[in-house]
C-alpha cells in the first residue's frame, strides 16, 4: 500500500506553471528524497503534501485517502522546517507538546510522549530551556522532536540541514537516518544537496523544472542516469561530459578515441559522459591512452583529484591514493569502457 501518492500534480503561481504533472508513489516506511536545484518545484510539492499550498490540478492521497481538501492538521503529517520554526516563547517541552495540547490530549499522555521523544533525541537536559538558549543542532532536534511526538503517518522535511554548519550537517544526517531506521515512519525529505540525497534516501526523485527527471535508488541513479541532467546533478565531483561522434564501437571526441560498451548509430552525434573515478591515470605505454595536461592537483589523502585539460576542455580525474603529477605536466588517461555513458546530443536521453 502506498503511504503517499501523487497523481498528475500540477501547480501554477498565477499564470506561471511550476509543476507539470507529477506522479509519484511513496511506499509505507520509505525514505523518499526529492532533490533538485532551487526553483525545480521540490519544496512546492512538499508544501502541497503538507497542505500549505493549494493544489492546481491532480490529487494527493495519504494512505489511499485523497487529501486535496483536507486541512493540514487533519492530514496526520508532521513537518520540520529549514528555519526550525520553533515557538520562541515556549520551552522545549511546550514546543514539543504543543500539537498534543491543541488536540486536547491528557497531560499524562503529553508528558509521556514528550519524555519518550526527548530520550530518543538526547534532549532530556534541555526540556525547560527556551529555543534561543539552544545551539542550531539542538534546535533542529527539537523541531524533529515536535514531529515525533505526534506519531504521524508521514514526516516531511524541508531542507532541514541547510542552516547548519558543514560538520553538524554530517552528524545530523546520520542522526535523521538512524531515527528513520528506528521509527520506520514514511518520510519525504526535500534537499538541494545531492550528497544528502544519496546518503539518506531509500529512493530519490530528481526534479528539474517542475518534472521528475528520474526516480530510483541512489546507486541506480548514480550508475545509470536516465539523462544528462541526472548524470551531471548526481555525483560529486560531477561527471565529465563532452560532445563527440559515435564511430565503430567508440566515440571520436577531443581528438581521441573514447571507448564505450554502450551503442549508438554509426556517425551519430552523442554526448560522452564518464565519472572522474572511471578516468584513471595510465602509464605512457598503455593501449588506448589519452594524453592530457594537468592544471591543478588536489590531494585529499585517501584520494587525489586532478583537474586536467585536453585542448581547452577541462576534465576531472579522481585517483585512489596519491599522485606525483604536477601542474603543467602531461599525463595519460585510461577511460573504463564499461562505465562510460552515452547521451543523445540533442535530447540528452541515455542511449
Amino acid at each position: 500500500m502506498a503511504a503517499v501518492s501523487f497523481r498528475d500534480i500540477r501547480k501554477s503561481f498565477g499564470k506561471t506553471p511550476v509543476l507539470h504533472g507529477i506522479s509519484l508513489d511513496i511506499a509505507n516506511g520509505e525514505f523518499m528524497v526529492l532533490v533538485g536545484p532551487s526553483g525545480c518545484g521540490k519544496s512546492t510539492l512538499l508544501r502541497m503534501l503538507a497542505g500549505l499550498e493549494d493544489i492546481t490540478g491532480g490529487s494527493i492521497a495519504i494512505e489511499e485517502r485523497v487529501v486535496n481538501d483536507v486541512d493540514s492538521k487533519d492530514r496526520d503529517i508532521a513537518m520540520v522546517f529549514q528555519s526550525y520554526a520553533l515557538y520562541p516563547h515556549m520551552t522545549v517541552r511546550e514546543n514539543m507538546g504543543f500539537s498534543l495540547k491543541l488536540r486536547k490530549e491528557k497531560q499524562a499522555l503529553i508528558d509521556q510522549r514528550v519524555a519518550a521523544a526527548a530520550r530518543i533525541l538526547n534532549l532530556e537536559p534541555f526540556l525547560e530551556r527556551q529555543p534561543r538558549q539552544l545551539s542550531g543542532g539542538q534546535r533542529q532536534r527539537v523541531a524533529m522532536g515536535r514531529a515525533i511526538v505526534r506519531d504521524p503517518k508521514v514526516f516531511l522535511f524541508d531542507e532541514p540541514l541547510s542552516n547548519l554548519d558543514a560538520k553538524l550537517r554530517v552528524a545530523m544526517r546520520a542522526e535523521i537516518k538512524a531515527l528513520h531506521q528506528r521509527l520506520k515512519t514514511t518520510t519525504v525529505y526535500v534537499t538541494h544537496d545531492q550528497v544528502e540525497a544519496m546518503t539518506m534516501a531509500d529512493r530519490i526523485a530528481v526534479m528539474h523544472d517542475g518534472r521528475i527527471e528520474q526516480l530510483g535508488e541512489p546507486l541506480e541513479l548514480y550508475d545509470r542516469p536516465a539523462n544528462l541532467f541526472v548524470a551531471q546533478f548526481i555525483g560529486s565531483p560531477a561527471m565529465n561530459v563532452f560532445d563527440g561522434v559515435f564511430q565503430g564501437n567508440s566515440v571520436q571526441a577531443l581528438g581521441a578515441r573514447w571507448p564505450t560498451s554502450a551503442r549508438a548509430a554509426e556517425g551519430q552525434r552523442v554526448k560522452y559522459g564518464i565519472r572522474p573515478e572511471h578516468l584513471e591515470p595510465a602509464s605512457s605505454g598503455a593501449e588506448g591512452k589519452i594524453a592530457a595536461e594537468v592544471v591543478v592537483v588536489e590531494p585529499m589523502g585517501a584520494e587525489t583529484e586532478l583537474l586536467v585539460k585536453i585542448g581547452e576542455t577541462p576534465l576531472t580525474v579522481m585517483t585512489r591514493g596519491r599522485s606525483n603529477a604536477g601542474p603543467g605536466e602531461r599525463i595519460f588517461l585510461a577511460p573504463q569502457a564499461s562505465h562510460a555513458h552515452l547521451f543523445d546530443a540533442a535530447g540528452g536521453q541515455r542511449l
Partner: protein
Amino acid sequence: MNKFAREAKLWLIAIPILLWTLLPIYHIFLFSISSKDSAFSGALWPDHPTLRNFGTVFRQEHFYLHHFWEQIWNSLWIAVATGLLTLAVATCAAFAISRLKVKGGRAVMNAALFTYFIPAAFLAVPMYKAMGSYGLLNSRWSLVLAMVTLASPYAIWVLKQASDKLPWELDEAARIDGATPLQLFRLVYLPLMMPSLVAIGTYALLLAWNEYLYAFLLLSHENTIPLAVGLGHFLASDDSPWELLMATALIYALPPAAIYYAFRRYMVGGLTAGAVKT
C-alpha cells in the same frame, strides 16, 4: 583634548535644551508649592514653601476642585478604555491583514491612514454631530470612541509592520500542529507581539489622557469631564487660583511620566519597530 572639545560642544547644546524644557515644569512646581500671595513674586524659590495646595486639591476644598477625584477617575477610565479598545481593534486588524492575508487588507490600512490627512481638529465637529445622533454626548464612551478612532490607524500601521516581521514558518508550523486561526492568534501571535502591544497600548492611553479639545466638546457635565477639561475651567474667572491649578496639573502629569518610565524599553523599541520597512 579633542574628546573634551567634543563633549563640551554637546554640553553647550544640551544645557540650553534642558533648561528650555525644564523651565515650564519648574514653574509649575514653583507655583504649586507657593502660597497664593507669593505665587507671582518672581522669586526662584518661595520664602515659605508649602504643601498646603496639594492638601486643598486632595480634599477638594475649592469651588473648581469639587469634582477633583471624580474627574481624575474619568481621565483614568477614558485613558484605560481607549488603550484597551485601540489594542483590540488594531491587533485584530493587524493579525487579519498581516497573518491571515485578508483580501483588501492593504486597502483598508491605507484608507485608515488617509484619515490623518485631515487634521483631527477639523473632524471634531462631524464627530460631535455623529455622537449626537447616537445619543452618546456627555457619556464617557463618546470620548473613548472618538479617541479610538484617532489612535487606531497609526496603531494598525505599527502593529502590521511588527507582525510582518514574525517568521511565516511559525504560522505554518502552528497550522500543521493543528492550531485554528483563533488558537494561532491567542497562543502564538499575541505572546510574540507583546512588546509592540505594550508600546501601542501606552501610546493610545497617553493620547486619551492628554486630550483636551474632544473632551471639551463631547463632555460638558462637571461629573463626566476628565481632569484636563476640569483644569481648563480654572481659567473661566478673572481671579484664577493659579497655585491650585498648578498643583493639580503636577498631579495630572505624574501618571504619564510613571507609565512612560515603566515601559520606556518597549516605547523606543515598539514604536520604531515598524518605522522602517526592511
